[in-house]
């Protein structure tokens, strides 16, 4: 990890990495910069410096409720994905489940399905079942898209666990559930953490599903942001965006503190 790339290939790699960083980070930096602008419109370069947009946004009832909806939704879908995904990934990898490949493919299929269409289908399905609760719809929809991330990362890390560790634990007298908690889980903690982070981020940032499934009472942050933008394009939009970036960064830093990001991302 600490070693440096050298030669022509190394230079290309570094330039490419720098270019990617610039293209990803620069627009974010622009957004953050604009959020402190005193100009009445979201224009770049920003003029002056003020935190009034943040004060305005944070005091806004609609923003507050959207933020709470989004965080609640992200936390709930992450927990649910964990609760459903962990046993699923474990069973598919360690037990002889008939048709395990088909089941795994089905669990991962939301990865490749057009989410916008999935959302519409889900909306119609819910309407058919006379389930008109937007919160429930959003929750089900978000779990649908976050679950594959957890299954994928946990599966990948389970595959890397040396089976003889589990066998050694069995011979030492550990019943299967203790083998799982005392030996398997400690080996895959980074994978689990990475999976949960992905779930949180994907849900927090989710737009196409929420677009169909939310309503005026239950509106996640991305939809709220989009709605506000169509009304007025002042730096409060940038402030909302910056707050979203901040939340994401907090999640990443939290993970780093918890298990170390490098370990978590090494799956």
């Amino acid at each position, binding site marked *: 990890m600490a070693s440096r790339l050298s030669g022509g290939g190394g230079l290309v790699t570094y330039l490419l990495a720098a270019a990617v960083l610039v293209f990803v980070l620069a627009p974010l930096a622009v957004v953050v910069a604009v959020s402190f602008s005193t100009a009445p419109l979201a224009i770049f370069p920003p003029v002056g410096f003020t935190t009034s947009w943040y004060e305005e946004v944070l005091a806004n009832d609609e923003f507050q409720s959207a933020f709470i909806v989004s965080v609640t939704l992200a936390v709930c879908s992450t927990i649910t994905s964990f609760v459903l995904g962990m046993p699923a990934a474990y069973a598919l990898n360690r037990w002889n489940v008939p048709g395990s490949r088909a089941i795994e493919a089905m669990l991962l299929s939301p990865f490749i399905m057009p989410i916008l269409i999935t959302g519409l289908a889900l909306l119609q399905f819910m309407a058919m079942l006379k389930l008109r609760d937007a919160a429930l719809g959003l929750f089900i929809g978000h779990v649908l898209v976050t679950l594959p991330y957890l299954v994928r990362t946990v599966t990948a890390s389970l595959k890397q666990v*040396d089976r*003889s*560790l589990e*066998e*050694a*634990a*069995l*011979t*030492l*007298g*550990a*019943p*299967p559930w*203790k*083998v799982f908690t*005392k*030996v398997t889980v*400690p*080996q895959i903690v980074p994978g689990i953490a990475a999976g949960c982070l992905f779930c949180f981020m994907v849900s927090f940032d989710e737009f196409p599903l929420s677009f169909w499934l939310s309503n005026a009472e239950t509106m996640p942050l991305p939809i709220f942001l989009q709605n506000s933008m169509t009304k007025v394009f002042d730096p409060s939009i940038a402030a909302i965006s910056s707050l979203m970036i901040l939340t994401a960064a907090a999640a990443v830093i939290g993970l780093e503190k918890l298990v170390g990001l490098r370990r978590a991302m090494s799956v």
Partner: protein
Amino acid sequence: MVATAQASDLAFSGLTKLFGTTRAVDGVTLRIAAGEMVALLGPSGCGKTTTLRMIAGLIEPTEGDVLIGGMRITRTPVHRRNIGMLFQNYALFPHLSVAENVAFGLQMRGMRKALIKPKVAQALSLVQLGALADRLPSALSGGQQQRVALARAIVIEPTLLLLDEPLGALDRNLRDSMQVEIRQIQQRLGITAVMVTHDQEEALTMADRVVIMRDGKLEQVGTPEEIYSRPTSRFVASFIGTCNFLRGDVIGQEAGRPQVRLAAGGQIALPSPANDQKEVLVSVRPEAISLSAEERGTPATILQIVYRGQATHVHMALDDGTPFLAFLPNRDGKPVRSAFSTGDRIWASWSPDSNWAVSEA
């Protein structure tokens, strides 16, 4: 001192495992006495690991039974078998320290912390690793890791110690000393042990009895000496050490010893009354042979002379083309090469006690 578990004998009857249509293990029946160390030896794919894993309970037999101390444990889950097992890759828990690794089995038995501590310390001192108790396994050498694994396996006072090529990943010198160390500990604790290896020297060094396996079946079972000096088949004789094979016909008896005329010329006697077969295959170990320039014994032509430190290997061809090999001991490291040279015609002789008739297969 780690307490000696009361040793139990181990038996399998008709143990069989099919993978699809492959008979990985095919009707193995064997009794292993309490405190005995048995080595399963055989070429790759002959079913050694599969047999061991069935004893451990990690693989369920297709047919047959495993009995420990007369109790049928074939359907007992692994974690209730009270088994200590060593793996080729050590299988130490990477997230636990050396001491925690050793304590694992005791914790699983619900032992109190105060009791665990001294037991772990004893086990670690038995393998001379007391000083490294707080290290993580990744900070240990291969030999140290396997010693931790050994301490972890014996601290639970297992009824059975199973070893699957435990020293396979170590280099030659370390392997030799670990062989002796593991053997000493096994004997001192009196644990019944089954070891898998495909290293014949390891099997001869460590085991009370050696089991030669072939295609999932037992080929021969015996003490190292029996296996080496009285192999039943050509397969065993050539698998353990090096061996010459001579074809011949029994032409009569003389002083109760069957006389064999060799196809390559010359006549030899068999040490024991042979069964009444006419054609025999006789095995002779290369170290039993002496060479002479005088016309005495079986004639041969020297093809190559190789100096090998403690012995000189003389590769020859008998008159019918049969390859023939003699190991001549070197005295003071000096080769006997000077006496002979490539292309020489010489005569090989050996004691009739070195002859041993084996089956062809």
